[in-house]
């Protein structure tokens, strides 16, 4: 028996054990509370509008419980409720009402059209909800409809341009996740935000069906984020998926299908241009002319590797609701081809959500979401390859026989088409992911709600791949050499497999007290407890078959195909982390006028040593609704005016390593003696025993104004967000060599202003329109990054140091081109400068140009983000236009800077200097002049762009006139995305990678963002 007990308690310590224990507990609680609902009466009623029309689909709920229903098409409802209870009646577009039952069995309730519906909107905040009018923080809500119709496979990418203070950098790669930054970059580490999907904390939402999202909330300021404590430092994006609405049964289908096209090719010279420029370059170097005799082709390599590609998104959902339960079921399928040949991504999704209202006070529910994806990834590097390959070479001679590049780039630049064709279908990536939760919610003593939820997220990704035999290449004869065909006979076929397992377990328990007290006090108190556990594990291997040629057929692509004596490498590893959190929040409102929000969270994490594991975070927010004050009653210009301010601290512990308090051991430093290999492990860096997380301290102040009869609304926020104790691996000056020191160092500050404005009006009865715009400006400054040493993080292009913005471009300033020797003599120059070279600014004025003349050249991060939406409706027609852009950043054209071989020229080089007076921008065609390749403003271009993001024209069929119509709603639309981008940037797209804060902004062959032309349909039955 003793034995058994100990087993039992061990079992309880496991996650499964706890889950089961909790479920049993929850069910036993239900049994106890079942009896308390004896005093209910049955109420029938009708809801009408102030103009007397019956309102259907109105939500009728018993306050303080989960009981509720919705009105039918005649506006009628039937409901069981306590005789002394209160009903809450709410409907979109109408002001909500609370009606005491007072033992009445029949009720007629009139709703008046709402003046300030947007303010009554309920916003999901961490571990609860709040009315928008009561918020003291800065939260932007995006309705699911705004992303559902966009031709994109990843829901986040459709947020671009919609939210002030949110920067999104999209990629054109099929299924790719965009880079997301909220209010600037606040760390030298990963600055990705936290995603919270129906309560579970996530690092990405790739697994969601974008048509299945109810709303997206972007939490920007500390008083909103503080409830997420250590995880929230980079901002939080809350996703709420769709649920069945009470009292409805609907089937809806959404689909769109489109084609994607490369609409901005990089302008490179053609064969004739190449021959001219290369000949001139050889002449300038003093080299012998190149023999072009056999090179008669004129190939546009970009046309060869890009294609017109298909994209489609499909979603079918069924929602059903009865008195006691709601069910929501969704399946989705998306397929995106990349415009880079053979790139393909497919995702399949199924989600089931079920809630059971056991009594009016007890709700149980659960959800399971299954996700499967498949990918044929694109071949890397060919985006640049197509720009670099000489246009004078033809593509291929036949099956498996391609032309190689001319000798001046043969070993450095491969035939881009050969690279794509060789890898076509050689990598099969796929993955499964299941997320789910079960919860129980109990309301008791009218004002209390206890909710417990267990979440899990299980992922399993796998890759199988194949290494082909190379193609044969025809090398054209040049001068004395003759044309021949070559083949790399050292190559063998190989196979590889890798598998990765992810597990996340999370539990949340919250107790909420919510009560209107006498005298106009409203109090909401939340207390909670949460734990989170992550685990991942991977194994991988590859084997090269040195005796047989494995066929290019995926049935053979398993390690055991190649017998075991063949060479191969194999690997595997695992990692885990855990955290425990206590959280609390008080929301207090006095007469709806004075608002107070106080948040606290205490987090413990396994990522740091036990002495530094725990941290406290918190915030205070205040709001003042002036328009509810007596002295404002006579003021006609403001329909609603709220002032708000908040302060808080959060942690930035989301994206840091798991074992920071242990010195990471690097076992690559093996000892080699002769042909003997000896294991050696040594600390990869010198650890700091006091290591702790980064802390973000934020201040926010702003106002919200509704005016001109609520037609115009305006929200303005100022913020100042400071990250302290940034975790950084630094290289100590010389002394420590290349061994890093990992420590908390430095402060980064982001200050900014966000403005959102909306105008909504109606002209006559048929035409309505709205205009929404947002604008944000952010200033980033690294305030300190080490004191005794002048610590910098630099890759020679970007520099991060005190007093400047993070990762700024640091180099020489081009003033022009040295035109003549005479000019050279009287101008400061480098000792190696000659006429035709870039002239640099003598920044320190010492009469010579050297490393001390390097200076600030700009930032890779946009200072300004702006976006807007124009929507118009006329009868059944609707037109939506999304606009979006950024300004104030620079792009480094890294793709042009390679000197390791002679590459094809971009058209700017047609204007290269040839003699005095020819140009003051483009240096001479001579790639041996190293001084022209120093990093300078010559290699930067403005990153500003303005884009017509979406243009969508839709028609909604009037189904109310034909009562027998099979549809409740039917809308068809045509849509264009990324139709035009106005920019001075010369790359495929001005959206260059900024994911690594300290080396951002380089265009080194980015994946083009395509234009998408699509057709879609939404039907509800």
């Amino acid at each position, binding site marked *: 028996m003793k034995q058994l007990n100990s087993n039992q308690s061990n079992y309880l310590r496991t996650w499964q054990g706890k889950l089961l224990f909790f479920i049993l507990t929850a069910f036993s609680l239900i049994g106890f509370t079942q009896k308390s609902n004896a005093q209910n009466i049955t109420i029938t009623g009708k809801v009408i509008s102030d103009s007397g029309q019956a309102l259907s689909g109105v939500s009728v709920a018993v306050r303080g419980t989960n009981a509720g229903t919705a009105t039918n098409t005649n506006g009628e409802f039937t409901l069981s409720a306590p005789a002394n209870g209160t009903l809450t009646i709410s409907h979109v577009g109408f002001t909500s009402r609370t009606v005491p039952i007072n033992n009445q069995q029949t009720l007629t309730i009139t709703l008046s059209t709402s003046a300030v519906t947007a303010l009554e909107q309920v916003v999901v905040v961490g571990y609860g909800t709040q009315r928008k009018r009561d918020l003291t923080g800065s939260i932007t809500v995006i309705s699911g409809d705004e992303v559902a119709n966009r031709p994109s496979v990843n829901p986040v990418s459709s947020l671009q341009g919609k939210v002030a203070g949110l920067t999104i950098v999209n990629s054109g790669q099929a299924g790719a996740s965009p880079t997301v930054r909220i209010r600037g970059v606040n760390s030298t580490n990963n600055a990705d935000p936290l995603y919270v999907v129906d309560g579970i904390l996530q690092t990405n939402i790739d697994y969601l069906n974008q048509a299945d999202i109810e709303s997206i909330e972007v939490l920007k300021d500390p008083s909103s984020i503080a409830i997420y404590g250590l995880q929230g430092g980079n901002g939080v994006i809350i996703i709420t998926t769709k649920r069945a609405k009470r009292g409805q049964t609907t089937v809806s289908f959404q689909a769109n299908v489109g084609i994607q096209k490369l609409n901005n090719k990089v302008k490179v010279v053609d064969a004739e241009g190449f021959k001219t420029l290369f000949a001139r370059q050889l002449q300038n170097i003093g080299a012998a002319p190149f023999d072009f005799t056999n090179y008669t082709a004129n190939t546009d390599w970009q046309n060869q590797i890009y294609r017109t590609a298909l994209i489609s998104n499909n979603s079918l959902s069924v929602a059903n609701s009865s008195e006691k339960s709601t069910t929501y079921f969704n399946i989705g399928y998306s397929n995106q081809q990349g415009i880079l040949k053979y790139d393909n991504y497919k995702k399949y999704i199924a989600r089931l959500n079920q809630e059971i209202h056991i009594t009016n006070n007890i709700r149980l529910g659960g959800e399971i979401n299954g996700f499967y994806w498949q990918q044929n990834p694109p071949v890397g590097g060919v985006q640049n390859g197509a720009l670099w390959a000489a246009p004078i070479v033809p593509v291929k001679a036949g099956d498996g026989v391609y032309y190689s590049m001319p000798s001046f780039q043969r*070993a450095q630049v491969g035939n881009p088409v050969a690279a794509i064709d060789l890898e076509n279908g050689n990598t099969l990536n796929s993955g499964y992911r299941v997320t789910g939760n079960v919860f129980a919610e109990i309301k008791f003593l009218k004002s209390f709600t206890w909710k417990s939820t267990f979440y899990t997220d299980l992922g399993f990704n796998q890759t199988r791949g194949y290494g082909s035999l190379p193609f044969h290449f025809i090398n054209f004869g040049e001068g004395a050499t003759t044309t021949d065909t070559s083949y790399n006979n050292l190559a063998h076929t190989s196979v590889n497999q890798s598998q990765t397992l992810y597990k996340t377990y999370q539990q949340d328990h919250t107790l909420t007290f919510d009560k209107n007290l006498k005298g106009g006090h409203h109090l909401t108190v939340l207390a909670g407890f949460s734990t989170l556990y992550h685990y991942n594990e991977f194994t991988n291997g590859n084997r090269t078959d040195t005796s047989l040629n494995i066929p290019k057929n995926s049935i053979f692509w398993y390690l055991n195909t190649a017998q075991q004596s063949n060479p191969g490498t194999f690997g595997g590893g695992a990692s885990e982390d855990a955290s425990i959190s206590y959280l609390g929040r008080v929301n207090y409102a006095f007469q709806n006028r004075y608002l107070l929000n106080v948040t606290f969270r205490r987090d413990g994490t*396994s990522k740091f040593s036990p002495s530094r594991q725990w941290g406290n975070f918190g915030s205070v927010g205040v709001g003042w609704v002036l328009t509810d004050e007596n002295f404002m009653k006579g003021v006609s210009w403001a329909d609603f005016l709220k002032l708000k301010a908040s302060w808080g601290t959060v942690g930035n512990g989301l994206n840091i390593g798991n074992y920071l308090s242990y010195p990471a051991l690097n076992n690559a430093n093996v000892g080699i003696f002769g042909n003997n290999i000896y294991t050696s*492990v040594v600390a990869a860096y010198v650890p700091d025993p006091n290591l702790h997380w980064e802390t973000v301290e934020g201040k926010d102040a702003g106002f919200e104004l509704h005016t001109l009869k609520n037609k115009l609304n305006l929200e303005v926020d100022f913020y100042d967000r400071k990250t302290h104790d940034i975790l950084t691996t*630094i290289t100590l*000056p010389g002394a420590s060599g290349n061994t890093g020191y990992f420590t908390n160092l430095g402060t980064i500050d982001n200050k900014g202003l966000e403005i959102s404005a909306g105008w909504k009006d109606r002209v006559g009865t048929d035409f309505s329109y709205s205009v929404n715009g947002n604008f944000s400006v952010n200033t980033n400054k690294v305030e300190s990054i080490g004191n*005794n040493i002048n610590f910098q993080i630099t890759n020679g292009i970007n520099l991060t140091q005190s007093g400047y913005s993070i990762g700024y471009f640091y180099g020489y300033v081009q003033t022009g081109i040295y035109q003549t020797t005479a000019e050279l003599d009287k101008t400061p120059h480098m000792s190696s400068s000659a006429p035709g070279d870039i002239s640099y600014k003598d920044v320190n004025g010492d009469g010579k140009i050297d490393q001390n003349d390097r200076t600030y050249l700009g930032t890779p991060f946009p200072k300004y983000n702006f976006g807007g939406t124009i929507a118009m409706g006329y009868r059944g027609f609707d037109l939506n236009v999304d606009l979006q852009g950024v300004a104030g950043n620079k792009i480094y054209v890294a793709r042009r800077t390679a000197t390791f071989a002679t590459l094809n020229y971009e058209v700017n080089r047609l204007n290269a200097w040839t003699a005095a007076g020819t140009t003051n921008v483009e240096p001479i065609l001579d790639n041996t002049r*190293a001084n022209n390749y120093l990093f300078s403003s010559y290699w930067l271009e403005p990153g500003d762009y303005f884009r017509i993001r979406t243009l969508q024209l839709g028609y909604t069929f009037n189904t109310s006139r034909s009562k027998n119509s099979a549809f409740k709603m039917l809308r068809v639309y045509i849509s264009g995305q990324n139709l035009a981008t106005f920019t001075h940037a010369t790359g495929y797209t001005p959206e260059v990678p900024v994911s690594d804060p300290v080396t951002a902004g380089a265009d080194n062959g980015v994946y083009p963002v395509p234009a998408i032309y699509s057709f879609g349909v939404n039907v509800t039955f």
Partner: protein
Amino acid sequence: MRRMNNNFLLIAGFSIVLLGGILAGCKKDFLNRIPLGQYTTNNYPYPSGGGPYDQYVFAAYAGLRTWETSVFGFVGAVSIRSDDADKGSTAADAPAQIEMDNFPVTPTNGLTNDLWTGYYGVITKCNVVLDQVARDSANTPEPTKNLAKAEARFLRGYSYFMLVRLFGNIPLVDTVLTNVGESNISQSAPAAVYAFIEQDLQYAASILPAKWDVKYIGRATSGAANGMLAKVYLYQKKWGQAMAAADVVIGSGVYDLNTPYDKIFTEDGENSSESVFEIQAYADANHKEDSYGVQYANVQGVRGTDWNDLGWGFNVPSAQLDAAYEPGDPRKASTILYAPSTAPTKYGEVFPVEPNPRYNEKVYTNPTVRAAVGDRFGWWMNIRILRYADVLLMYAEAANELGGAANTDSALSKLEMVRARARNGNNAILPAVTTTDQGELRTAIQHERRIELAMEHERFFDLVRWGIAANVLHAAGKTNFTPGRDELLPIPQTQIDLSKGVLKQNPGY
């Protein structure tokens, strides 16, 4: 109402039990997560018979296989700067190496920073070993500790010797730096650095074994320490000590010249009886181009386009070197690989026209090994750092500089040993040097060093220490070479910036 209260109590009770249970179950162990699938210094199972310091010592050796220490910046600074080598590759490739070839090397040249951080990285790893030994509270036997210290001090001495020759004025660090504030150390003059190196190498020479078990072939020996020490003395013109240290190596009986010159640099010639110290590298089908090997041969390999694409083609023998050989000297064919080939190579390969007419044959790999590894880029090639012939020539140079009939005789005999091996029985070539004139013999020894050790990291440093760098380099067309500046590399600007100006730039930059 009474019932409700009861229910509330029940719920509250259950909640507390539930919460308490979860907390008790979690709190202690839940946040305690030890790295999975990875050793820490606390749980590393030391191999039986292996010392607790081997892992740290091996990491220091591994530091010599890196890009920073022994690859691109290394060949640039020790060879491309000299008159024996041109930059190679294609005209525009690697602006940083163009600077090495033509002078001046600018302070922002990335290769200088590579060298700086690379060698200081090795020094840090050595300091870690010494720190571990000093803090050893277990009953580790004294000889084990001393051996670890000796290996660390040998590698540290070698690293400082490279740094002092490259940069001149450098910070001396002999402890593990963990405090950001204390890590900013000012430079010491070369004389102080040399004194420090001497102590390290003297200690290493007194402890290290003359030979290691064959399974540890290539590990630092007392011969390596004495040989390196001889070179350190030579650079300071301490002729007597140089001769004595070289004599210890010669008298050890461990080394000989029995390996034919054309075999020394092949895969078969690795760790031959001539090898005093070489950086060990390894590659096989599973480790073609990774940290087990070194990219040294890859960056110098023939820049072909097909089977003949053996590398990037940097650091190619110059026309001046080509012309410097005495008639018929067979060492030329073992040093210079011509493209197009004038005759099939020793492995029967025939190279077509390549971007350069000459490549470094001392990194030319065996096609059989290439096929076995399944790779053409030579990451398996060891780097010969110190050869017995070098020790003999150091002895000859020191003896000649000391002067006196006995020393001159001794110098001549050591010189002849080297030439005799090169002659390989063909008495029609490379006549024995017989002059007893100190100046003439000096010239002969300098010539012999150039030829015997061509493309082997000695030439530029030799020119500088002989005081003839400006004359020779100007004659070779490197007219930008400015005496008083270009003998040393600039202190990397990155390091000066990091130090907030505590590090001072070398003169002339």
